[in-house]
């Protein structure tokens, strides 16, 4: 397990050694601010909460999280450094989890930098800070889920562009799977799958959490979702590392 943190530390430092960190954080904050204040009508709603902020958060993550993960494995393979990494005395699982944890820590840093929203809403009124905290927890879980998907797609290819597009597409499937357009379609054609699709909807679960309904089943869902994609990641890395 110690190796996991050595890998995570190197990876996280890598974000900050390149412009990736700065570009990502700035774009994330600008996008999230614009959507909350302008599109989300934060002020004219006249309510002291962060509902518009959390409404847009998963969609911003959907777009930006695969941009963080696309380099994780695709870059290693393109540069050939994967050959150095995986011939060091560490298990592939440690490398996969280490990289995932670094990306997750990075997302959490970006998310933490949205603290001015919390301050703003606390100055303007008296919001339920418990619900806001639940929203942030939900945000951390959604980013973890998307990161796990993105990390696995990154392991499938040498090209960062393909990794990004695949990542966004896969995350999109799990984002919209609870939307009426998908469930209605499934209800008409394959009713069995309809409730399963709803169950896999990352955004629907996130919405419940961000409204303050934190249930054990959601936590279990996110934990197993992340676990599954990381497992897939290990399998893909092991199978394709040298190809």
């Amino acid at each position: 397990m110690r190796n996991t943190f050595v890998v995570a530390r190197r990876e996280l430092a890598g974000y900050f050694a390149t412009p990736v960190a700065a570009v990502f954080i700035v774009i994330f904050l600008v996008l999230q601010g614009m959507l909350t204040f302008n599109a989300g009508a934060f002020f004219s709603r006249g309510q002291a909460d962060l509902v518009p902020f959390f409404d847009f958060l998963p969609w911003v993550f959907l777009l930006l999280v695969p941009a963080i993960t696309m380099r994780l494995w695709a870059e290693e393979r393109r540069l050939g450094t994967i050959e150095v990494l995986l011939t060091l005395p560490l298990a592939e699982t440690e490398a996969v989890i280490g990289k995932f944890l670094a990306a997750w820590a990075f997302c959490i840093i970006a998310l933490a930098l949205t603290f001015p929203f919390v301050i703003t809403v606390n100055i303007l009124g008296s919001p339920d800070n418990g619900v806001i905290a639940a929203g942030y927890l939900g945000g951390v879980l959604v980013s973890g889920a998307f990161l796990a998907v993105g990390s696995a797609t990154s392991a499938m290819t040498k090209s960062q562009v393909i990794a990004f597009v695949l990542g966004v597409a896969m995350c999109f499937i799990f984002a919209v799977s609870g939307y009426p357009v998908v469930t209605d379609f499934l209800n008409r054609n394959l009713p069995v799958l309809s409730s399963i699709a709803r169950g896999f909807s990352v955004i629907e679960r996130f919405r419940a959490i961000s409204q303050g309904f934190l249930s054990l089943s959601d936590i279990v869902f996110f934990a197993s979702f992340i676990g599954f994609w990381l497992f897939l990641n290990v399998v893909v890395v092991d199978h394709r590392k040298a190809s």
Partner: protein
Amino acid sequence: MAALIEIVGLTKRFGSFTAVDNVSFSLDKGEVLGFLGPNGAGKTTTMRMLAGFVTPTSGTAAIAGHDVEAEPVAARRALGFLPEGAPTYPEMTVGGFLRFTARIRGYRGTALASRVAAALALTELEGVRLQPVETLSKGFKRRVGLAQALLHDPPVLVLDEPTDGLDPNQKHEVRTLIRRLAPEKAIVISTHILEEVEAVCTRAIIIAAGRVVADDTPAALAARDPSGRLEEVFRAITHPAPLAKVA
């Protein structure tokens, strides 16, 4: 004592293409094996299988008694590996990269610092310790890869073209280094430079189309041709000889 490197019937197929075909050899402490062959002969694939990076289709490889498939972590602890092209993380500094590999190898605190310092000294990289790898020339990058392979003073070294891209002075230094390390280790180097084999290797294996076609001391190999030159022997063994086929 068991051999430090033990390869038995190692075979790798990619689809219908056989890259490495039933290669077997073993190497003891004190031996320096020159691994020769034309491009695409299977040298790199064999070395990757030995390092546990490529899974063999059949056959086994063991380092210091540890099977690379069954006990990969134990085998890699005993191995210093320089992959083809000496890849390194471009944004990391030389010192940062070596500290990273040292941490993975379990070193901490002063042990870590002294290991990194020793590896930097051995490869004469102290001057560029704080430079990002991407700012270095090809020769320096190769030495960073070499430093990484030597850092933990492993009993087995597998070096894929360690002198590629180095200038004549640097080549000479690396050869001197290999000769100095040789008595305590089992070393495999792949190279296209035949004079290098004569300079540092105690044994040479020539591989062509995935098969071992010669395994002898460099001197005995060279003596196979009337000219006494290893280059002529290499050409005679590995060249497909199209004229002979026509006749």
